[in-house]
């Protein structure tokens, strides 16, 4: 990004998204601490659990997606995100592999809901069915639904990994992800 390119119009638009994950990736993202200020001056955070925009923008340059696809809402969101995003990064093991949310896959959603809302509840046991979205039969990684441009495994990827990857991308370089992080890191 050149200094003369204008301060608002040409800044890279970055979004972060929280689907079926624990927000640990977002916490690790924040663990970049003061380095966030340095990076933040190079892009606009246009959508994120960390800011207050409610609607996913029309045009996003880079989206970091945390979490697996577990519900009909996640599925709807990820298709919408893909449609409006140039470069989609699967952030963390849940987005990349399904990780902990996918541990319900061998049992199925009915067994899990029964365990959580019927068997282990002292009073008024009931499975939530209004407002909350229906669970999909299986929890799947993001790339089984939409094209993913970069994978950032790790549970969570470290702050150093985020910093190196984002610095490289902002400078137009392709980061060597496998040298920085791994499944379960």
């Amino acid at each position, binding site marked *: 990004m050149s200094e003369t390119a204008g301060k608002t119009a040409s800044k890279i638009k970055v979004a972060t998204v929280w689907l079926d994950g624990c927000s640990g990736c977002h916490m690790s993202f924040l663990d970049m601490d003061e380095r966030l200020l340095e990076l933040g001056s190079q892009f606009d955070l246009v959508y994120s659990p960390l800011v207050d925009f409610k609607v996913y923008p029309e045009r996003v340059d880079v989206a970091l997606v945390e979490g697996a696809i577990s519900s009909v809402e996640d599925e709807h969101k990820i298709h919408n995100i893909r449609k409006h995003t140039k470069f989609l990064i699967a952030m963390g*093991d849940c987005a990349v*592999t399904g*990780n902990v949310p996918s*541990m319900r*896959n*061998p049992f199925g959603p009915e067994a899990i809901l029964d365990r959580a809302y019927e068997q282990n509840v002292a009073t008024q046991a009931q499975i939530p069915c209004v407002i909350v979205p229906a669970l999909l039969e299986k929890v799947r*990684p993001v790339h089984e639904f939409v094209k993913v441009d970069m994978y950032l*495994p790790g549970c969570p990827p470290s702050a150093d990994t985020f910093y190196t990857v984002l610095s490289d991308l902002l400078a137009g370089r392709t980061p060597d992800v496998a040298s920085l992080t791994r499944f*379960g890191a």
Partner: protein
Amino acid sequence: MSAPVDVKTLVIDGVNVSGSAGQTVLEVARENNISIPTLCHLDGLSEVGACRMCLVEVKNSPKLFPSCVLKVEEGMEVTTASDRLKHYRQTILELFFAERNHICSVCVANGHCELQSTAQSQGLTHVRLPYRNPKLDVDASHERFVLDHNRCILCTRCVRVCAEIEGAHVWDIMGRGIDSMLIADLHQPWGESSCTRCGKCVQVCPTGALSEKSKFGAEHPKHPEFLPYLNMMREGQ
């Protein structure tokens, strides 16, 4: 007078090397600091060529060969790293991850797992195949150890160390293909088997399939390096 050593000279990755007849390409490569990834191989155990991570190319053959069972030959030209081999190795790793439930973040072996570290060293950042997510058992019937089938890659290191080193042959593989399963004795709970409680299988397991109870992650480094030493001491007696 000792018998003259039958020396074979060959080329591995463009380097002239030599080994004695009967040595494998993997052995000679490692003696010459040429690294080839492996999972089922372990120094001190017999070779089974099961995991296919150590596949190499040999000039004038369209086939790939598992270097752990490929004997050195005079004039052989071996390639251990190429785009083709990288593709196959990554695909094999993807098959391992997709076959059972390898959830690295909550695995007892996180940080000490050879499947995890090999995936990283081979540049694997995601699995293109759909995960099978089979429903598999965890056998915690043993007083000291746990068997988690979710993490097993069927390398048979445990089978071999128990049969060849401990001499108990408690472990074996039941079934065929994707239904293959590690079993104790005649498919009994581990705790009720003829296990001698030596723990060698736990030490050689490359993943979190065999672990010590109440140990997790950083507390659970494994020490497979004891095997060559044990063999050396026995041969010396």
